[in-house]
């Protein structure tokens, strides 16, 4: 039987506010345990929440970026359950009236196809603390520093049909939130976390199959692997006559499998009701218009512009617009050198290769966009040839000079374009290579083109790589053909 996979994602994005969603405690990562948990975060008796305006603004910015309806009135509800990392015994969230309504995100796959993934809604809520399971005499330690960090939970429709689409969607969300600057998007530190809902159904069937929810899939790679495993598990189960049960599963990256979370033995009953300590959040049109006017150019718009205005391929445009850092770097290189295709080639080729080898992000590149732009400019204006350019790039990478020009100068890489000097070198090479000249002359005319390579090599060698190869080629051909 042919199976179709149906995937929906719930992405939790930690918003990059300074203080928590309902208190004035810091949200900085990595502090001493419980040193950033104030009375409100600890849920001490009598304390009350007050909403952070920046958390609201960031949620709205996201909503505007995905063309969503922003709720004029949104309401915080309490989700009631007991867990040690949840100090109040309830999580303040938005169940019935979320701040961001339906929207959509466009994703591009490797084959250049684009798909629209609908967003069901996005809501604000508070993060929980952390349980530390190292040994405290058989006890678990609770750190509540993270408790109360603002989260935007972005819930998609079940619109994805493959692990690749799910990963592309997650990347698209990542690039939107980092473009907006509303999250650092750091998945390793948990700034972005993902729950995946997966089900399978026979191809052509309209009704959805029973889904499993895979919790805490925390990298782009894991999303693909977890889905791949889960799809195979479900198909095998059904083909063997079994039934998928609706349950929560945990992805284990070490074993590359998902497994049932048996501790949640009972169905939860969260008893949502409106939080009486918080009032309805009311946003007016002027506020939304103001935030809309502040939105940066977003990845989809950039991608479109890179293709239409700069003439890049869909693939190049998509890679270069994927992250705000990458796009800004590319645009600076382009601004300095003036040639979009060359800029794109250098950023995706030499630069990305070097960054990958040393596992660096573009933000930490030792070569600045300005330096690279100047380097490309020197290639374009024939100051250096391609081979020398790679040498200059290495020089910049290793800090051998502060600019391309300085390295060209120091290493004497400036291209020789003086015809007289090149002719002198050519004459010398011809004089030194009587056998090769003879072969050239005896050869069929159509084979001579290839044979000229030897002489070019010798001349370039004589010039220590600085001669202009096109010029050398032309002059050599003239001189050799004159000997025929």
């Amino acid at each position: 039987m042919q199976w179709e996979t149906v995937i929906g994602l719930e992405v939790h994005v930690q918003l990059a506010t300074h203080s928590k969603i309902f208190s004035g405690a810091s949200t900085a990562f990595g502090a001493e345990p419980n040193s950033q948990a104030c009375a409100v975060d600890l849920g001490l008796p009598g304390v009350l929440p007050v909403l952070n305006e920046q958390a609201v603004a960031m949620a709205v910015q996201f909503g505007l970026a995905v063309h969503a309806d922003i709720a004029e009135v949104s309401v915080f509800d309490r989700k009631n359950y007991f867990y040690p990392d949840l100090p109040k015994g309830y999580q303040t969230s938005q169940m019935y009236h979320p701040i961001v309504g339906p929207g959509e995100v466009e994703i591009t796959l490797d084959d250049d196809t684009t798909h629209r993934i609908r967003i069901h809604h996005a809501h604000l809520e508070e993060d929980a603390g952390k349980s530390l399971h190292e040994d405290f005499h058989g006890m678990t330690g609770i750190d509540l520093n993270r408790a109360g960090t603002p989260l935007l939970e972005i819930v998609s429709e079940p619109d994805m049909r493959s692990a690749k689409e799910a990963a592309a969607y997650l990347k698209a969300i990542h690039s939107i939130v980092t473009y907006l600057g509303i999250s650092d998007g750091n998945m390793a530190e948990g700034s972005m976390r993902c729950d995946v809902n997966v089900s399978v159904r026979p191809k052509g069937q309209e009704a959805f199959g029973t889904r499993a929810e895979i919790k805490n899939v925390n990298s782009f790679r894991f999303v693909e692997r977890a889905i791949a495993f889960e799809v195979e598990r479900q198909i095998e189960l059904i083909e063997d006559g079994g039934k998928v049960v609706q349950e929560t599963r945990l992805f284990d990256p070490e074993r590359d499998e998902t497994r049932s979370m048996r501790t949640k033995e009972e169905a939860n009953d969260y008893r949502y009701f409106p939080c009486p300590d918080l009032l309805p959040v009311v946003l007016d049109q002027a506020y939304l218009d103001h935030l809309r006017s502040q939105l940066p150019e977003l990845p989809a718009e950039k991608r479109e512009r890179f293709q239409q205005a700069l003439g890049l391929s869909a693939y190049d445009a998509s890679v270069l617009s994927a992250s705000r850092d990458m796009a800004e770097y590319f645009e600076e290189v382009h601004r300095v050198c003036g040639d979009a295709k060359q800029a794109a080639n250098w950023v995706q080729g030499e630069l990305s290769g070097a960054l990958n080898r040393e596992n660096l992000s573009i933000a930490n590149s030792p070569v600045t966009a300005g330096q690279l732009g100047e380097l490309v400019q020197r290639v374009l204006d024939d100051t250096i040839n391609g081979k020398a350019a790679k040498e200059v790039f290495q020089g910049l990478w290793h800090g051998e000079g502060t600019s391309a020009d300085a390295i060209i100068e120091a290493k004497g890489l400036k291209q020789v374009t003086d015809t007289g000097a090149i002719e002198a070198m050519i004459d010398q090479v011809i004089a030194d290579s009587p056998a090769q000249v003879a072969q050239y002359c005896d050869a069929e005319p159509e084979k001579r083109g290839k044979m000229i390579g030897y002489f070019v090599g010798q001349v370039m060698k004589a010039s220590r790589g600085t001669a202009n190869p096109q010029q050398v080629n032309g002059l050599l051909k003239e001189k050799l053909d004159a000997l025929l």
Partner: protein
Amino acid sequence: MHDKTLTQIANALGSGELSSRELTEHYLQRIQQSGAILNSFISVTADQALEQADAADQARAKGTAGLLTGMPLALKDIFCTQGIKTSCGSRMLDNFNAPYDATVVEKLKTAGTVTLGKTNMDEFAMGSSNESSYYGPVKNPWDLTAVPGGSSGGSAAAVAAGLTPAALGTDTGGSIRQPAAFCGITGLKPTYGRVSRYGIIAYASSLDQAGPMARSAEDCAHLLNAMAGHDGRDSTSVARGVPDYTETLNSPLSGLKIGLPKEYFGEGLDPEVEKAVREAVSVFESLGATVRDVSLPHTHYAIPAYYVIAPAEASSNLSRFDGVRFGHRCDNPSDLIDLYKRSRAEGFGDEVQRRILIGTHTLSEGFFDAYYTKAQKVRRLIRQDFLDAFEDVDVLMGPASPTPAFDLGAKKDPVSMYLQDIYTIAVNLAGIPGISVPAGFVDRRPVGLQILGTHFAEAQLLNVAHQFQQTTDWHLQRPDFAEESA
């Protein structure tokens, strides 16, 4: 000196006739002598009180004193007080020294008041008789076999017995007004949002409101001046100017339109109480007010709506008492669930457990709409009843409670206890202010007249109550207990 009202004491402090230290020592001594009989205090903070009194006297000598500087007060044990046990009447918090002051406590400290101690209360403010306290019931100073009312029963009894000039209470369904009525004192529940809730241990967040309990409306006006105002730490606190509540106390009442809700004079009302209340109303007529009957048609549904909404909020508010970060923790928990279940079963008394269970049940799947959503719709109708009535009249009057204080142990069945709050509970659902003033006696047990106004009409309520107290002396009468223990 304990015969004096807060206003009289303030004058004596201002003129130098009395020092705060003398005053504080006097009240501390009275608490020590009679406190055990009434059981109105959970904690007495004598050392801190004397320090505060000395500081107040110094401030007065320096000329930096305000009206309340050096004034002794008692706080219901629901207000968080930094470094001082804040038990909320519960075993759960018997070991809890709050790490901060409630906003109201901060404000009163800034005004220079002296905290004598923390008063007894129904556990987590859930009760109408003060019998649900972990620290045992409080006795009514007018009759030691009677309850003082609840949940602010300790505060009411302490004021009535002259153990403190005034006290703070909180009112979620009548918890200031009903004990004020039972103990023959004046108690004001302000408009929801008028006084900050920050640092007050929550029972039902959309209903809770703190207010003053004292000998007279004038005393309450002085206290409310210090308590009211916007607080950035409480989202439900209202950003609206605070008038000087004493300024309008003497406004004449001629032309005042009084409404008597017919539902407040129906079945279940003790005829003697009704008589006292009607006589009180006639006093207002003699002061130039006009009286008419009005209707609050949904009155009957206030208790049912309240017993969905309040326990629902409480069930969630009280989840933080889990034995992890503060409060009672059971011995040797075998696992996490055991830790939660035993700590909470041991820490909470019966009435609190009942309300948590009711609230949990009514919020749970399959019941939520029938109970919670329905109750919230009825809540809107109840509020609308009041808003409609206030289109026609300035204030509403009626009894604060259907009977005078009942005997200790008389109400065994929870529902019969709940029905006690029939006249007070709708006020919290609507969020309007209400005041109870002494208006007579039935068999030496006080009767309270309740006066209700529209949102933010505290100044008017205090004016109306004060004018009543200029004409009557019910509020000046003291129980024999207060005299005997002098």
